[in-house]
C-alpha cells in the first residue's frame, strides 16, 4: 500500500514538470487567486525572514540576477540576468561587477539606476543613514567591503576575500533591489519595485492584491492581469477553498503530505508537486548546562533518534534524512549515503544504536531506575510541536523522561537567547542551497542564529576554505567533511529535511516549484491561465 502510494506521488511529480514547449500559446488575462497561510508582518522582503513575505511580494520586484524560474534545482549554473544585463568577476575573485539595464523604470515612473543598487546593499549592510527596522540577512554580506558605482549603469561589489557563492546569494528571492527614493517605512506598507506586478493593497488578515505592471521592461509580460492572495489561517478551510475552485493555486509549499491525499481525492484534476523545501527540523542542545554539558548524554540523545519514524509519521515516508546540507538528489551539497551512515545514530539499525545509547546513559549515571527528567521546549506551532511529541516518545527508550514545554512565539527567541532550555526543537530554513549560507549562519562562532553557541575554530577555518574554493568538486569534498564533523560534534542534530506539496488547477501554466529552496521561485511574470 505504502509503496503504491509513493509511486503515485512520483508520477505526479513527473506530470507536473513544466515543459513550456507543450504548454501551447500563452493567453493573457485573468486574476491569479492564491490563498495565503498567514498575514505577513510587513511587505518588505529585506526586513523579513519568512516566505510569507517572499511569496506575495517577490512579483513586485527584480533582482540583479535571479535563479532561472523554470529550473527546479537552483545552482550557480541556473543564475540568469535580471536588472543586470551581465556580470563579471575580476581576476583575483574579489570584485563582482554588474552591467545594468537602461530601460527599467520603478512603478512610480522614476528611472532605475546604479544608485538604487548601492542604496539597497548599503542599507542591507547597515551602512546607510536610513535603517531597516530589522535586518536579518546582514551577515550574508560580511565579506563585502563596499558597493561602488561607475556611472548610472554599472555597480561593483568589492570583497575582502574571494567568495564565489555571493552570486547565489544575490540570486535569491530574498535579494530584491529597492528604490533609493522610497523610505524603508513605505516599503513595509506600500512597496515600490520594478517587477512584473505592482502593489495595490495589503489588508492585514484579509488580502494582498497585486496588479499587472503594463510598463514592465520585459515586453509582453506579465500574462496575468493581477494576483490576489486571500489570507486564510485555518488550513482545512483553505484547502476546502482550493478544492471547491475558489483558488487557482494553494499557498506554495504549504500543503502537508496528509492533506495532499485529501486534495487529490477531492480535486482529482489538480496538479500537485511534492518537493523538499530546504527546511531542516533539528534539535538545539544546551551544552552549557547540565545534563547536556556531558558529551555522553549528548551523544546518547543523538543516537536514540529513529529518523525514519519521524519521516513516517509526519510525511508518510516522504522526507529526507541527512546532515546540515539538503540531501540529494534535490540538494547539491549532501554527503554520500555511505558517509552519512558512518555517523553515530545514522546507522540503519535503530535498536543497536539505542543499545549503545543506553550504555552511554548508564555511564553518565542514568538507568531504568534513575531516569533523566528534562523539558523539550518548542514553539506553539504544529510543524514544531509535532516532531517534539515524537522526540519525547523516542527519548523514553534511553531513560529520558521528557516533558513538552510549549513556548509562545513572542517568547521563543528571547528564551533561546537566555539559554533557558535543555533541548529545543527548531526549524532552520535555507534560502539558498549553498554552504556559505547555512554554515556561517548556524555554526560560526558568534553568529546570531547559532543558538547553541557552538564554536570550533578548526571548523571555522574550513568554512572559509570551502567558501573561497572555486573548484566545485573540491569544494564539495570539503563541505562533506565539515558536515560530518558538525554531526559528530552533535552541534545541532538534524532530524530530517521536510518535503511539502503545492497544488494548482490544471489550467494554470508555467508554475515551477523549486526543489532546493522555498524562497526563490515566485516572480510569476510568465505564469498564465488556460481558460
Amino acid at each position, binding site marked *: 500500500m505504502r509503496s503504491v502510494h509513493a509511486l503515485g506521488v512520483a508520477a505526479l511529480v513527473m506530470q507536473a514538470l513544466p515543459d513550456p514547449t507543450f504548454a501551447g500559446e500563452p493567453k493573457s488575462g485573468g486574476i491569479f487567486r492564491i490563498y495565503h497561510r498567514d498575514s505577513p508582518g510587513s511587505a518588505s522582503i529585506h526586513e523579513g525572514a519568512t516566505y510569507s513575505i517572499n511569496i506575495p511580494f517577490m512579483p513586485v520586484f527584480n533582482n540583479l540576477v535571479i535563479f532561472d524560474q523554470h529550473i527546479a534545482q537552483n545552482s550557480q549554473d541556473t543564475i540568469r540576468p535580471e536588472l543586470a544585463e551581465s556580470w563579471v568577476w575580476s581576476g583575483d575573485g574579489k570584485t563582482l561587477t554588474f552591467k545594468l539595464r537602461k530601460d527599467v523604470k520603478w512603478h512610480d515612473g522614476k528611472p532605475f539606476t546604479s544608485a538604487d543598487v548601492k542604496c539597497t546593499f548599503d542599507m542591507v549592510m547597515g551602512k546607510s543613514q536610513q535603517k531597516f527596522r530589522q535586518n536579518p540577512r546582514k551577515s550574508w554580506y560580511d565579506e563585502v567591503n563596499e558597493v561602488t558605482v561607475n556611472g548610472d549603469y554599472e555597480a561593483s561589489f568589492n570583497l575582502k576575500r574571494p567568495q564565489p557563492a555571493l552570486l547565489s546569494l544575490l540570486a535569491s528571492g530574498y535579494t530584491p533591489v529597492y528604490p533609493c527614493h522610497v523610505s524603508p517605512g513605505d516599503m513595509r506598507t506600500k512597496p515600490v519595485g520594478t517587477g512584473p506586478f505592482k502593489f495595490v493593497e495589503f489588508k492585514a488578515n484579509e488580502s494582498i492584491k497585486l496588479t499587472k505592471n503594463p510598463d514592465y521592461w520585459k515586453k509582453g509580460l506579465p500574462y496575468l492581469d493581477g494576483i490576489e492572495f486571500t489570507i486564510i489561517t*485555518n*488550513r*482545512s478551510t483553505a484547502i*476546502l477553498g482550493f478544492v471547491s475552485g475558489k483558488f487557482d493555486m494553494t499557498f506554495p509549499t504549504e500543503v*502537508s503530505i*496528509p*492533506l495532499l*491525499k*485529501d486534495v487529490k*481525492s*477531492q480535486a482529482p484534476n489538480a496538479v500537485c508537486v511534492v518537493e523538499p523545501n530546504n527546511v531542516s527540523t533539528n534539535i538545539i542542545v544546551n551544552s552549557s548546562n547540565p545534563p547536556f554539558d556531558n558529551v555522553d548524554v549528548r551523544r546518547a540523545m543523538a543516537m536514540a533518534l529513529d529518523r525514519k*519514524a519521524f519521516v*513516517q*509519521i509526519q510525511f508518510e515516508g516522504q522526507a529526507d534524512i541527512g546532515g546540515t546540507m539538503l540531501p540529494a538528489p534535490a540538494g547539491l551539497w549532501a554527503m554520500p549515503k555511505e558517509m552519512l551512515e558512518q555517523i553515530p545514530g545514522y546507522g540503519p539499525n535503530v535498536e543497536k544504536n539505542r543499545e549503545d545509547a543506553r550504555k552511554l546513559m548508564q555511564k553518565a549515571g542514568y538507568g531504568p531506575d534513575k531516569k533523566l527528567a528534562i523539558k523539550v521546549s518548542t514553539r*506553539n506551532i*504544529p510543524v514544531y*510541536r*509535532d516532531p517534539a*511529541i*515524537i522526540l*519525547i*516518545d*523516542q527519548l523514553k527508550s534511553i531513560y529520558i523522561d521528557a516533558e*513538552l514545554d*510549549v513556548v*509562545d512565539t513572542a517568547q521563543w527567541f528571547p528564551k533561546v537567547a537566555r539559554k533557558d532550555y535543555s533541548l529545543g526543537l527548531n526549524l532552520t530554513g535555507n534560502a539558498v542551497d549553498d554552504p556559505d549560507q547555512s554554515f556561517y549562519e548556524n555554526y560560526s562562532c558568534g553568529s546570531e542564529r547559532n543558538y547553541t553557541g557552538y564554536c570550533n575554530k578548526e571548523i571555522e577555518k574550513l568554512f572559509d576554505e570551502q567558501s573561497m574554493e572555486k573548484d566545485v568538486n573540491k569544494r564539495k569534498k570539503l563541505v562533506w567533511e565539515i558536515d560530518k564533523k558538525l554531526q559528530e560534534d552533535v552541534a545541532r542534530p538534524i532530524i530530517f529535511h521536510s518535503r511539502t506539496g503545492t497544488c494548482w488547477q490544471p489550467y494554470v501554466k508555467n508554475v515551477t516549484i523549486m526543489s532546493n529552496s522555498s524562497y526563490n521561485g515566485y516572480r510569476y511574470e510568465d505564469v498564465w491561465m488556460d481558460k
Partner: protein
Amino acid sequence: MTAVNYDSELRRAGAHATHGWRRLAFLAQRYVLGTFGLFIMILFVWTALSADLIARYDPLTVDSAHRLASPSWAHWLGTDSFGRDVWSRIIHGARISLAVGIGSTALGCTIGVFVGLISGYLSGWVDLVFQRITDILQSLPLLVLALVMTAALGPSLPNVIVAIAIPLIPTVSRVIRANTLALREQPFVEAAKSIGMSETRIAIRHVLPNTLAPLIVLATAQLGSTILTEASLSFLGLGIPEPYPSWGRMLSESAAEYVRTAPWLVIFPGVAISLAVFGTNLFGDALRDILDPRQRG
C-alpha cells in the same frame, strides 16, 4: 431570593415519603432528564477518575505503525496522526475538562461568594467598589477576557483555570450579594443580632448556609460553560498545550487537517465535549427546578 425548603416543595409536588431512598427515587422519577444528566455527569467524573483503568493505551504514546487508523476493534475510536489511540485520549481528556470545569467553577464561585457576601453585608463604599469591579468584568465578553488572561498568564493548566475563573466571579457575586441583601432583612438575622452575635458570625452561621442553594444552581450552570470556554480557548491555540489530550486541542489545528481523511478526529472529541456539557446542563436545569422553585418551570 428565598431560603430553600424542599420538603414543602416535595409535598406540593405530591410526594408522601420525604426521607431516604424513596425521596431520591421520587425525585428521579419526577426529573427524568435531570437524572439522565446526573448519570452523564457521574459517568464523566468516573471516567476522569479511573482514566488509567479504562484507557486501553497510553494517551501520549506515539505509534508510527498505526497512524490515522480508522475505528476498529483494536482502536475503538481510531488513532490520530501520531498513532495515539483516540479513545484513550478522550478518556484522559475527561480529566482535563473536569479539572478545568471544577477547578475554575470552584475558584470563581469561592471568590464570587466572598466578594458577594462582603459586598452585600457591609454595603457602603466597599459594596460600591465591588459593584463597579463586577460591572467592569461583566462588560467584557467571557471569551475576550479569558483570551487576554491566558495570553497574559501563558498556556498551562493552572493558568487556564484562573483565566476562566475570573470572568465567573461577577456572575456569582451578583447573585450572592442580592441574596445576602434579602437575608439581612430576615427575622432570624435580626434575632441573631439582638442576642449580640458578631457580624462575621452571623454572616458565616446564618447568611452563608442560606445562599447555598442558589450557589449550587449557579455553579452547575457554569460548569458546562467553563468546559466550553476551555474548548474554545484550546481551539484558538491558547488553552491547554500539547501533549495533554484536551478535547478542544484535539479538535483544533492538527485534527482540522484531517477533516475528511480522518473525520473521527473531528467528530469524537466534539461529541465528548457536547455530551459532557449536555449532561451538566440537564442536571443543572433539574437542580434549579428543585432548589430554586421561584424559577421553576
